[in-house]
């Protein structure tokens, strides 16, 4: 377990270093890049002094990290507003959306996977897996517009966007569903594959031959073990959603992190780009570590070095 945390630490360090180096690798004067093309020469020099951009790189990096850890993210070039306020709002929104998205993914994907596994090689299996392929190969843009057309435009059941900026559950359903239809596919596939494998194991056959009811064997014994790799996949997908599902956010005008980063890139808002990338990288790394640890908790075999690796 300690190893996982070590990896996390190294990942975060690496990501922050790369983000820090972006400004220095771009052509031009780093202070000018961070101050923006509109700033006066005076402002550029002031910024250079404040950020210590004339000091050796290592010192700069240390100061950069100190500022980040303090929560001083600097100001956006384009709007002049402090980045911390901007990011917080967007990040919380993305968090809400991702949670709804991943829950729906699991609700749709896991039962379908089980279904397919139980009836493998039958019509049902083919239908379910076909659905999975459609879910993953249909551009998410199409899924999103489709949902909006049906539920907002035609049926007027759900809002297509939040105009007041307040994000309630009603605002999360459609974009969450769009993400979910996309994420359910790999979850369903993994569940099916894993279930099939587990159902073929010795101990399952033994359980059946003991005369235990089929339902208990499937759901109590097989499923629990089958879910282990599913947890990994789910974690990965959650991380992807957290990284900002830009297209879904664009279609639903959802104020999330993905759109923030893209907007920042288009408007060359370098301080915001830096912090945005850092947030996404850190979140992804944290989620993956959490998944790894969860994995270890669920599967006792992984806790000791001698255990059978899954």
């Amino acid at each position, binding site marked *: 377990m300690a190893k996982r945390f070590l990896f996390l630490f190294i990942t975060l360090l690496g990501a922050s270093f790369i983000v820090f180096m972006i400004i220095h690798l771009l052509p031009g004067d780093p202070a000018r890049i961070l101050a923006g093309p509109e700033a006066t020469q005076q402002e550029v020099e002031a910024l250079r002094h404040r950020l210590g951009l004339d000091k050796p790189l290592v010192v700069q990096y240390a100061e950069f990290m100190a500022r980040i850890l303090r929560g001083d993210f600097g100001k956006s070039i384009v709007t002049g507003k402090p980045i911390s306020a901007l990011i917080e*709002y967007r990040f919380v929104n993305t968090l809400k959306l991702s949670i709804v998205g991943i829950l729906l993914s699991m609700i749709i994907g896991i039962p379908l996977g089980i279904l397919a596994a139980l009836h493998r090689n039958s019509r049902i299996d083919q239908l379910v897996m076909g659905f999975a392929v459609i879910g993953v190969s249909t551009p998410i843009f199409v899924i999103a517009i489709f949902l909006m057309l049906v539920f907002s435009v035609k049926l007027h059941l759900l809002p297509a966007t939040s105009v007041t900026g307040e994000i309630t559950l009603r605002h999360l359903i459609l974009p969450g569903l769009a993400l979910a239809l996309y994420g359910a596919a790999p979850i369903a596939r993994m569940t099916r594959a894993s279930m099939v494998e587990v159902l073929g194991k010795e101990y399952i056959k033994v359980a059946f031959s003991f005369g235990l009811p089929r339902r208990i064997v499937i759901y109590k014994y097989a499923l629990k073990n089958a879910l282990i790799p599913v947890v990994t996949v789910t974690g990965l997908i959650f991380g992807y959603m957290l990284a900002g599902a830009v297209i879904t956010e664009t279609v639903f*005008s959802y104020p999330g992190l993905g759109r923030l980063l893209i907007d920042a890139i288009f408007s060359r808002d370098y301080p915001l780009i830096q912090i945005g990338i850092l947030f996404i990288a850190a979140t992804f790394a944290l989620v993956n570590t959490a998944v790894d640890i969860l994995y270890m908790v669920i599967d006792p075999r992984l806790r000791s070095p001698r255990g059978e690796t899954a």
Partner: protein
Amino acid sequence: MPNTKQLRALSNKLAISIIVLVVVVAALGLYAYKAANRGATKSTPIAPTTSTQAASSTATAPSTSPKPASGKDTLVVAMGTDIVTLDLHDASDNPSYMVGRMIYEYLVDLDENMHIKPGLAESWEVKNNGTVWIFHLRKGIKFQDGTPFNAEAVKANFDRLLTQNLRRSSLFKPFIKEVKVLDDYTVEFVLKKPFGAFLYHLAHGAAAIMSPKSFQNGNSPKKNPIGTGPYMLEEWVPGDRIVLKANPNYWNKAKAPHFKKVIFKIVPDDQTRMRLLQSGDVDVALRIPPQYVKELNKTKGIVVLVRPTNRVIFIGMNNLVPPLNNVLVRQALNYAVDKEAIVKNVLFGLGEPADSPIAPLTHGHCKVGPYPYDPKKAKELLAKAGWKDRDGDGVLEDANGKELSLTLWTPRGRYVGDYDMAQAVQQYLQNIGIKVKLQVWEWASYVKELFKPPSQTKRQLFLIGWAPSTGDADWGIRPLFYSKMWAPKGANLWFYKNPEADKLIEQQMVLLGEKRMQALCKLQKIIFNDAPTIFMVVMYDTLGLKKQVKGVVYLPTEIVLLKYAYWEQG
């Protein structure tokens, strides 16, 4: 507990019902989409309609009208791009002006036909052959922070524009010598030289009259914009929305703000914007993509306004490099492109061919064209210039056998139909034997590249639009065609130079009235004949509204004026 057989049957049923559910939802969606597009039958060009649903024999299209987004309290507007700043003295983008015009007001106003009307100034006089303008201000007006509106305030605003280096100072500094306070409600502008377009500059979005307190003593209108208008800023969440609230002390009681709040929601996706109108989430949607206008028009409860703008789309040509340095070649390119067809098929009728370097609604416009579609004439002109198809391969060559080959640069998504127009132009040019390579540019990089000086650029043909934000011919012609305005100094991106045109440009600046119009007419004729660019089309703009929204004014400078908008139920 149910037995295994029943369980299996149950899980089978579950499976089947899920599959059926998915299929039903998919079918619903397909039906919804088809129904939405069923309205799109033949031709008839778009005209502003009220949308009483035409009874059609096919299944009804949208059967329910959209729920009001918010009743009458709040007006919700969807726009595609965020504002840059509410310090309008320092802003050059339309979204900023549009929202700013709810908060600020101006000495003079423009109406839909680009005529000057009194604004914060009730009347004015011109003296000294046009170098002295005296404005009589309305009395009894206060800024939103309680500061009185008077001559001192006006002087403070223009002093700021004249003495500081703000983005829009260049609209005022070259012309205004000084601003004097004659008495509490009389202001005098002393100009360096008579300036025919002066009133249009005062009506420009950048000439906003702000409360002097808002920009003095270290205060910044960027954070706290204070004007005399019917609405005030409540909050701005960058990238998401701007929320305005009503000004309870607005001076014009006859036109008091009708809404408690106005929300500008930023919706970057074109299609989503109009879907939000259909779903009822917003009341106004700016810029509807042309291919959806018909569908939206047929939606019950929604009206689409189509209005000409003063934006002209050009295919710029580098006048300094061969073969484009030959006027015959440039004219040939103008004859080679069928602008009518482009308007009809690429813009879905939302435009008209350009008949001058400026649009008909630009003050000072004179009809001097358009170049008709005449590929035969184009080929003749090119032959005269030495370009013929000498080896029968469909491509023109010069006397040395070199092929006529050009690159065409275009942005994508900056203007409605920009990329598609460029593709069409490429095709037309290829039809008369010119090899054209198309290159797409990302907008910010494009702008940077186009403003490079002649020695640093590789441009040949490039698509670009221009809409004079003052609404006057001077700003539509001088930055683009005056030889002293070659990039990077000005927007003469094609490096056009004609001393006769230069003289007329300088003349029209200092003339007033009919004499000025005559000079402008001559000038437009010369430029059109010199063909420094392919004069493509004048763009139309679209606006989607719930039919209860009234009082919306569309200015051809691509500004939607919502300050006096109101809601009329039923």
